[in-house]
């Protein structure tokens, strides 16, 4: 039905006209581009190049450096979200995990709190004081704080997973509740104040760069430290998904939980793993964002949820489960960050930016449907050439 009219059913192999050949060729080219694993990457590159012509600033060293420091923390979050999406769930609590770990970690390692702001804090005098947190001022403050944050994130994620797997609660409900609970808790234990005076070693992760590039006005950083964190995570995630038994199980559970159970997959455990990974990634993202911000912030990640889900969907990770790759997550984030920064560069108001973002996510979702339809329909001709 969606095929070009020139392409009639072939009666015998003899009478293929040149018209049908062109139509077939068109199908194959469009089909291959659309079906390609790297479709979103092509799209990003095309978008960048086209916009660069009108907005030379987009390609400036300063902007590129800025882009790259925006990509990596978001990628960390999206990779975590992807694990949950693959098992057919959704994790709305990632942003609240960011907030609570940001606050807890910062309270742990801060080297001084303003009594005027924090004296009313329930933890004042017990856990924290004027001299800072328990690990404040210590040489090992940064690693201790990071480990603490990651542990909390993983723990909350596992709790989400247990509720989904064992209590058979809908993922949307579980993580919605935990989103409200932990973002409330984060505000409660800090009384809405940012926790400052974090050790330099911690701040370096989000703020420093490896190598610098000279520009007309000073210089900009080349590779942010957060890149290495994201890279390590991406490689680990790829390894788990593509090379381990757990990886196969994750996809199987997402595609058909009942069939997976019958086939001996420890379904509950796999689901808990997925949510734990998501919690861990949220905490890692929190480390990167908090350190860039230079503070533990109870409202950290407030507006990031749309970005996470949006980037995942744009990358082609299915909300119905069973589909997702680290590469796709990266392409999705790349496109999303590019879109975001270019829209701001066009001097659009924040609401216009949100409108455009919404439209783009819609288009991405439509494209996903289209791709699936093409895969079902055109695959025999399109794929044969690829293979």
């Amino acid at each position, binding site marked *: 039905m969606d095929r070009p009219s020139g392409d009639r059913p072939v009666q015998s192999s003899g009478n293929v006209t040149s018209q049908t050949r062109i139509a077939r060729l068109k199908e194959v080219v469009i089909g291959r581009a659309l079906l390609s694993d790297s479709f979103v990457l092509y799209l990003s590159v095309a978008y960048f190049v086209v916009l660069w012509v009108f907005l030379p600033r987009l390609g400036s060293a300063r902007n590129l450096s800025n882009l790259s420091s925006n990509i990596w923390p978001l990628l960390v979050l999206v990779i975590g979200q992807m694990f949950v999406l693959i098992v057919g769930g959704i994790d709305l609590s990632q942003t609240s995990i960011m907030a609570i770990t940001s606050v807890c970690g910062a309270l742990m390692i801060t080297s001084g709190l303003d009594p005027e702001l924090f004296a009313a804090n329930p933890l004042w005098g017990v856990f924290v004081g004027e001299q800072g947190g328990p690990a404040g001022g210590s040489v090992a403050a940064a690693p201790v704080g990071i480990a603490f944050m990651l542990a909390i994130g993983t723990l909350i994620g596992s709790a989400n997973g247990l509720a989904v797997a064992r209590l058979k609660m809908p993922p949307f409900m579980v993580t919605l509740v935990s989103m409200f609970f932990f973002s409330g808790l984060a505000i409660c234990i800090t009384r809405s104040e940012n926790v400052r005076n974090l050790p330099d070693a911690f701040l370096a992760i989000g703020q420093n760069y490896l190598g610098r590039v000279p520009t007309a006005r000073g210089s900009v950083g080349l590779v942010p430290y957060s890149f290495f964190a994201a890279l390590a995570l991406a490689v680990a995630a790829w390894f788990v998904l593509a090379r381990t038994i757990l990886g196969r199980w994750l*996809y199987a559970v997402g*595609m058909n939980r009942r*069939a997976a159970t019958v086939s001996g997959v420890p379904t509950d455990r796999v689901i808990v793993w997925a949510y734990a990974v998501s919690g861990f990634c949220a905490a890692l993202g929190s480390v990167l964002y908090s350190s860039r911000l230079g503070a533990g912030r109870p409202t950290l990640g407030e507006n990031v949820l749309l970005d996470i889900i949006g980037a995942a969907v744009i990358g082609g990770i299915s909300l119905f489960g069973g589909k997702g790759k680290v590469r796709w997550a990266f392409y999705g984030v790349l496109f999303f960050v590019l879109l975001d920064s270019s829209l701001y560069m066009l001097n659009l108001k924040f609401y216009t930016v949100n409108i455009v973002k919404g439209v783009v996510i819609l288009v991405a979702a439509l494209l996903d449907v289209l791709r699936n339809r093409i895969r079902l329909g055109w695959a025999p001709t399109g794929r044969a050439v690829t*293979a």
Partner: protein
Amino acid sequence: MSEPILQFEHVSKSFFGAMALTDITLAVRPGMVLGLVGENGAGKSTLMNILGGVIASDEGQIRLEGRPYSTGSPAEATRAGIAFIHQELNLFSHLSILDNLFIDGFPRIGRTPLIHRREAVRRAKEALAAVNLSISPRTRVDRLTPGQKQLVEIAKALHGGAQIIIFDEPTTSLTSRETERLFALIERLRREGRTILYISHVLADVLRLADEIAVLRDGKVVRTGPKAEFDINAMIAAMVGRQVDQLHPIRRGKPADKVLMSVAGVTEPGIVKDISFDLHEGEILGLFGLMGSGRTELGRILFGLDPFRSGTIDMCGQPRRRRTARRSIAAGMAFVTEDRREEGLLMEAPVTENMALVALPNCRRNRVPGTLDRLALRRSVDEMIASLKIKCVSPRTAAVKSLSGGNQQKTVIGKWLLGRPMVCILDEPTRGIDVGARYEVYSIINDLADRGNGLLCISSELEELMGICDSLLVMSKGRICGRFRRDEFDKERILAAAFEGHLERGPRGSSGASN
């Protein structure tokens, strides 16, 4: 003779270069039952989907009462008086019968958008009475048995004024009692002058119901004629294009004395009661029972998917506790489930991934814990695909849902065989697959027994079990009501045993346990 009500004239349809139907010409007279048979993929469903307006034909045309009829949409087909009773019923299970009957047009109060409840109830009662279903129209559809749901669907079709009714495999989920009821209804509809197109794999039913039979093979009508010209062998011969002397492979091996699985006194209240039997090495043990007899439930209990109150299940002399599917697999069991789509396969995943699922823990790489030895896995999956002769163009990329039923079933079986089981439980191993593939599945079962595996075959088709099994258990109402060795097989006695529990307690209440 009267003019044909429905004519297909040179209808052709291709999907992406592959011909699904070639030059179909077929005429159906009013008040006739046309039996449509053919292997899976022969084009029956495609032809009916064209008639039902689900898809459009490429060439040729259809005439209704002599007038050309173009199929635009299912709604148009309904308006033209064509109803399609699908294999998977198309009812909204959370709505009442009433809502389902009128979903495409409730009676209204005057011209307002308000529903005329009383009128709707009255008409619904009429419609249900027409199919002999005495149930309140306010009953929710998910409370009904499969047979009752089907009657509701038929009532809906009749209420819509359907003159041509298509049945696609209507008996797969019915008890034999419900099947009888359906056949009586079809008989009545024919007497009323309606035209029936009846598609089924159960050739005996087709032979019984149809006035005329059309056999499809590879998208072509290969033989049509009045029922008198056919018998089952003739139909099969036309379907497969060659003479099939044998439906079942010859059973050569003999069961050994060693007991692989020993079941003693297994009881779960309301489901099964006091089940005891031994499964030996190299034995094919059949488990026959009507729908709702507890045969599938017993399979699930044996495999550890469902719990049981008392009794023991030993594997190779080892009692089994804390049973889960995972532990059962580790203990050497396999379970080919009845429902391929829901419990058997990852429909979106390719063949290779489906096959690997059970064997994953066996393909561990020792150096790094938790990682896969992908080379070994790929090799064993490829070997299995070859040895089961699974036909698939691209087993690594094409979703398994694009395969035919037979190849899907072979994929499920292959998945379990890769786990190297000793005991295989197969629930309806040939459901929804065609004659050729059936023979292959039987051969696989035979080979497994010859290699020393113990097999428990659960089926509702007695001929099948009598053809392949060494001995047979008959279940009725959750109990074993009969045990037969191969030399004692006797259709009447086995059926009598299967109906045993049903005779004691009357017809109702027999279908509660299933679903």
